[in-house]
């Protein structure tokens, strides 16, 4: 019988997920051995038309990394959906939006203004902006449409499996590949390559009591490397993050930022993290609580660093093309 | 510690002797301060009768002025202190009031933020300078001088509450003891001297003053020491009226706290405004001299000289 067909695609992401696959080292050869790779733009020269030519459901496994932020990625999402038996949101960006998802605090106009006008390194006196289509002597040049809102793969097309991680850790990828080979994949819709517990389950630090009198940012204090960072006032998303990564960040004295997404029974990772953090503030005095909370400069960025698009609210609500007024934040304090 | 000094009206008028002694003694103690620029009357006891808002706005202006200097605002007048702290308290605890007062102050192009730090003269002497320093600086110990420390009533509720006890303040006793004086138990130390009634309603004021003087005599005090210009004024100026009310004659020296401190520091009486005291403090001088003589004689006897 012919080898199962494998496709890998790279949408809105940094490419780390591609590296994660390459980091299989020698095993990558097995992959090449086991699978017939039909699409992997990052590594080899494939053309979309080759994929379009494939019959539907002819790709056995498609590892799709990256979020959907423009029309080309959306097109490919639909195309690969149609052609694949098992479409896998590979990595945090495809799964929950990831770092690119943070763009949902803004919109196309704000981002373009920043990128094409405002950044110090930009010199663009003519105010040139990308055009969807542009006529040159040789013919028409086109660009994909840049959307206002970044979406997860599952928000665009139905997805069979989710492999979290920014990037997914090597061992987990291996495990999944193995499962595919042995046809031991769980029921569609499930998260694979991760555990059902949280990062704390992988974290070996000593936990005593959680009562916080003030929060610190990692550079503000030198934390005791043997004790729970949260108990030392450093915000760690570990308790509200799906485990399976092996807690590598914690092992180098850095807090978890939550890249593996919400634990199995959690609806909104940020909401839960926020609730947990607030709950352990050790004060009953509103003014004191206000003071403690003010030590968290960017609540949104802290709670939804990797998951804004997948969160309940999904994005920031903008009045026109301005970021939410600072004073709104101030009034919030005042209330 | 930097201070800005608010004398207030009485100290620059009827209570000049207090003012002079305050200045000389604080200079002697090495406390540096500048006078609050463009200060105004605190409203004394009368502003309240005119308008509540006015009675707060007047002191608030002084507080606001002091805020600009970012120094502690010191006053030696109990009434001024009372009005200032009262204004501070009510304004801080009532946002609307703060708004109204600031609306008034806006006319004068000034705003009260509520950050002013108000200090009473005694507070500065006892807690900033310190009783040890005071004791060290004594060159003319008041040994043998029996003094009645008269705290006065209008400072009771607020002033002493800030750095001593409202129920039973003792800071004054401790200060005088540091000067080597013999502080007698003065039962009426917090009784009222009649305040402005001594002028407006003498029939009420005089007997109160009489009681205070009688009490001082009863406990064999050589003099009464006060911490309030108005008390000093009342107890000095109305001894005849008080005598009539009590069917006796009084001649009880009444000194403002810094006047007595000055004597203990060996400062010339004139620089302490003592020549202005209605009741001449001569008995006090004599007692101090006697005390000095006694102690030196003692020294001779013990052959240490």
């Amino acid at each position, binding site marked *: 019988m012919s080898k199962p067909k494998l496709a890998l695609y790279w949408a809105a992401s940094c490419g780390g997920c591609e590296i994660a696959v390459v980091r299989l080292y020698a095993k990558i050869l097995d992959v090449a051995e086991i699978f017939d790779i039909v699409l992997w733009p990052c590594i080899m020269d494939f053309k979309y038309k080759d994929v379009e030519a494939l019959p539907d459901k002819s790709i056995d496994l498609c590892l799709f990394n990256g979020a959907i932020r423009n029309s080309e990625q959306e097109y490919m999402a639909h195309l690969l959906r149609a052609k694949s038996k098992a479409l896998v949101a590979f990595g945090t960006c495809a799964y929950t939006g990831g770092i690119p998802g943070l763009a949902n605090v803004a919109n196309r106009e704000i981002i373009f203004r920043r990128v094409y006008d405002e950044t110090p390194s930009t010199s663009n006196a003519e105010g040139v902006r990308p055009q969807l289509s542009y006529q040159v002597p040789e013919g028409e040049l086109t660009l994909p449409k840049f959307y206002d809102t970044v979406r997860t793969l599952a928000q665009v097309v139905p997805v069979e499996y989710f492999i979290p991680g920014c990037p997914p850790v090597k061992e987990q990828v291996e495990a999944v590949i193995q499962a595919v080979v042995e046809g031991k994949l769980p029921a569609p819709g499930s998260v694979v390559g991760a555990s059902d517990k949280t990062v704390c389950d992988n974290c070996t630090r000593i936990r005593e009591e959680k009562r916080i009198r003030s929060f610190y940012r990692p550079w503000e204090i030198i934390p005791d490397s043997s004790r729970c960072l949260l108990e030392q006032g450093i915000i760690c998303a570990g308790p509200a993050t799906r485990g399976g990564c092996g807690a590598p960040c914690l092992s180098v004295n850095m807090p978890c930022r939550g890249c593996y997404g919400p634990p199995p029974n959690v609806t909104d990772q940020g909401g839960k993290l926020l609730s947990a953090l607030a709950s352990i503030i050790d004060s009953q005095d509103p003014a004191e609580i206000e003071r403690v909370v003010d030590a968290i400069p960017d609540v949104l960025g802290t709670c939804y660093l990797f998951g804004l698009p997948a969160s309940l*609210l999904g994005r920031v609500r903008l009045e026109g093309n301005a970021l939410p007024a600072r004073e709104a934040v101030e009034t*919030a304090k005042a209330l | 510690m930097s201070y800005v000094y608010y004398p207030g009206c009485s100290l620059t008028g009827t209570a000049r002797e207090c003012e002079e002694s305050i200045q000389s003694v604080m200079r002697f103690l090495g406390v540096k301060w500048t006078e609050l620029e463009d200060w105004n009357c605190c409203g004394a006891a009368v502003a309240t009768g005119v308008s509540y808002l006015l009675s707060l706005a007047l002191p608030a202006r002084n507080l606001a002025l002091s805020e600009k200097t970012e120094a502690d605002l010191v006053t030696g007048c109990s009434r001024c202190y009372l009005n200032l702290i009262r204004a501070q308290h009510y304004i801080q605890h009532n946002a609307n009031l703060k708004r109204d007062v600031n609306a008034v102050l806006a006319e004068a192009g000034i705003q009260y933020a509520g950050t002013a730090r108000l200090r009473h003269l005694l507070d500065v002497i006892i807690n900033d300078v310190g009783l040890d320093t005071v004791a060290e600086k004594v060159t003319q110990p008041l040994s043998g001088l029996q003094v009645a420390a008269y705290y006065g009533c209008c400072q009771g509720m607020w002033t002493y509450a800030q750095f001593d006890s409202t129920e039973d303040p003792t800071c004054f006793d401790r200060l005088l003891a540091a000067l080597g004086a013999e502080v007698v138990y003065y039962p009426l130390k917090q009784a009222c001297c009649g305040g402005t009634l001594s002028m407006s309603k003498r029939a009420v004021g005089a007997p109160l003053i009489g009681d205070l003087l009688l009490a001082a005599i009863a406990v064999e005090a050589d003099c009464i020491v006060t911490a309030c210009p108005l008390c000093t004024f009342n107890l000095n100026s109305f001894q005849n009226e008080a005598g009539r009310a009590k069917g006796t004659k009084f001649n009880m020296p009444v000194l403002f706290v810094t006047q007595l401190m000055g004597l203990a520091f060996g400062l010339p009486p004139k620089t302490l405004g003592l020549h202005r005291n209605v009741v001449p403090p001569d008995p006090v001088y004599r007692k101090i001299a006697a005390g000095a003589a006694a102690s030196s004689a003692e020294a001779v006897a013990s052959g240490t000289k």
Partner: protein
Amino acid sequence: MVVPSNNWEPTIVGFLCNWCAYQGADLAGTSRMTYAPNVRIVRVMCTGRIDPTFVLKAFQSGADGVIVAGCHPGDCHYSEGNYKTIRRVTLLRKLLSQMGIDPERFRLEWVSAGEGAKWAQIADEMSAAIKAKGPLAWWETLKEA
């Protein structure tokens, strides 16, 4: 953004604790007070049960405002649940304003079992305030421009 028709009425979700606020709302009823019908109440045993996720869910589901009401500090039936609520609400407020949700759309109130009138007044006030603000209509936010 949706343009509010002039007869548009806001919808507010109220998370009320069983022991104080919910009884207060009941009292407003038994005393036959009349107030705006815009607040729809979800009963929880204690405001301490209110997961910020519920508030986010309410806004996502179409609420124009959310109000959390519980026992006055010190009166919590579970002794200190409402203090935990203060902590969560304080932090949640910061998040919501960053999300572009006007802080006035999210309120925390203390209503005792005896304060029926206070509940009625809060419901009226908040309905009026949010009617003035206009719809939040979160799904509009997610529509691709």
